[in-house]
């Protein structure tokens, strides 16, 4: 059984139909790269998976259970599905450690020592053991993004959604974040990532999903798809990047 299943997801913003019937299943341990042109609906799709955008039609199932729009369902969904954003979105009034500890404490009602232990473990994992007491504005973009990853991981999600997590970074900071994502993938974390890092997608991901005009246009094994794009849209997209 898949961890997350999407059936016939439709989503419009006013007259603009952004998702035109998306079917996608996310299996445990799978690392999925979501690629496509700007405006093709990649972010919108990720956001619907996490309930940040309400869908107009279709079904989202998590762990075999259908998610409705009720708040309790959304919270249950988000306990399973974490998300990391392009803009880090750390809470500026908390230290790195506090950012990571907050949700385990207030949502999962963990005790402070418990939450702290997990937070320290996660921050160490992303290579920030020495920055735990820093505030976000005292950290570089790459460090902030790694705190954001640690913060999502501390909730022990089953799936982690990553929306262009390196796009807001200076080029020299991209690799430190990609290294963390790569490590997560190797540890078996289920990941869905929107990315423009094609080489990374090819090396790390085991499924490639190409979105075009609100539809999944082509999908398959990254190596094969890159070597042998079946549709002209994908070959021009891949060609345009090279």
């Amino acid at each position, binding site marked *: 059984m898949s961890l997350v299943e999407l059936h016939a997801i439709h989503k419009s913003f006013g007259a603009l139909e952004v998702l035109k019937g998306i079917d996608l299943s996310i299996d445990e341990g799978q690392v999925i790269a979501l690629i496509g042109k700007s405006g093709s609906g990649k972010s919108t799709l990720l956001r619907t998976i*996490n*309930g*940040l955008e309400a869908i107009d039609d279709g079904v989202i199932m998590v762990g075999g259970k259908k998610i409705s729009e009720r*708040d309790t369902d959304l*919270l249950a969904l*988000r*306990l399973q*599905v*974490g*998300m990391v*954003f392009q*803009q880090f*979105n*750390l*809470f*500026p*009034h*908390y*230290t790195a*450690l*506090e950012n990571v*500890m*907050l*949700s385990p404490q*207030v*949502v999962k009602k963990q005790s*402070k020592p418990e939450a*702290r232990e997990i937070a320290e473990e996660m921050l160490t994992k992303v290579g920030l053991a020495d920055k735990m*007491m820093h*505030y976000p504005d005292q950290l570089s973009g790459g460090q902030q993004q790694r705190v*954001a990853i640690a*913060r*999502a991981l501390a*909730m022990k999600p089953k799936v982690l959604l990553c929306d262009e997590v390196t796009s807001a970074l200076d080029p020299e900071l991209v690799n430190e974040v990609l290294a963390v994502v790569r490590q997560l993938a190797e540890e078996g974390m289920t990941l869905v990532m929107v990315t423009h890092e094609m080489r990374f997608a090819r090396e790390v991901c085991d499924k490639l999903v190409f979105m075009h005009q609100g539809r999944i246009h082509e999908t398959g094994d990254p190596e094969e798809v890159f070597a042998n794009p079946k549709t002209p849209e994908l070959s021009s997209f891949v060609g345009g990047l090279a």
Partner: protein
Amino acid sequence: MAYKFDFGAIVPHWELLVDGMILTTELTVIGAVVGVGLGIMGAWARASRAPVISQIVGVYVELIRNTPFLVQLFFIFFGLPALGVKLSEFQAAVLAMIVNLGAYSTEIIRAGILAIPQGQIEAAQSLAMNRVQIFRYVVLLPALKKIWPALSSQIVIVMLGSSVCSQIAAEELTFGANYIQAINFRAFEVYFVVTGLYLAMSILLRMGLKVLGNFLFERRRHV
């Protein structure tokens, strides 16, 4: 004949001024604490997705911001007894200040809430926090920090505005001044001194609010 100043004529009545200042301070502290609390709830209601509550709060805010404080005070003190709500001078004064500051601070705090980047709220949502948790842990403190100077000014305005509570015989500072000049006819001296006292209280209040702000928003490690 030139007017001869006689500040000494106030001295026998100094206790009235001190009592007045104490009452003004009490009115201000209670009014500010409860009023800002009301403002926080009002701002939350305005920013929430519940349209009916948001509109009710909106009507309250506009009603208060577009009518004179003195009329609000009279309404509470002289008008409400018709509905069986009979308040003492002090109770009426404090309630009027709470209601007044509640409305103004609702708008001020709402501006602070709207200035919080949407991404932070979405991050909190994606961490499975509910609305109350997001407001309490993610939104409130940074929002207050952004508007603290404006909120502080509004609290000072309310403190100064408390002088009209003398009109319902709440025995605050201005009431004391009116009383003294009515028996010693030393209007200039009395109001000169009282002006100085209000000025001193404003400065102290501003300083106090600044210290409180530093305490609230200072980078304190919570763990």
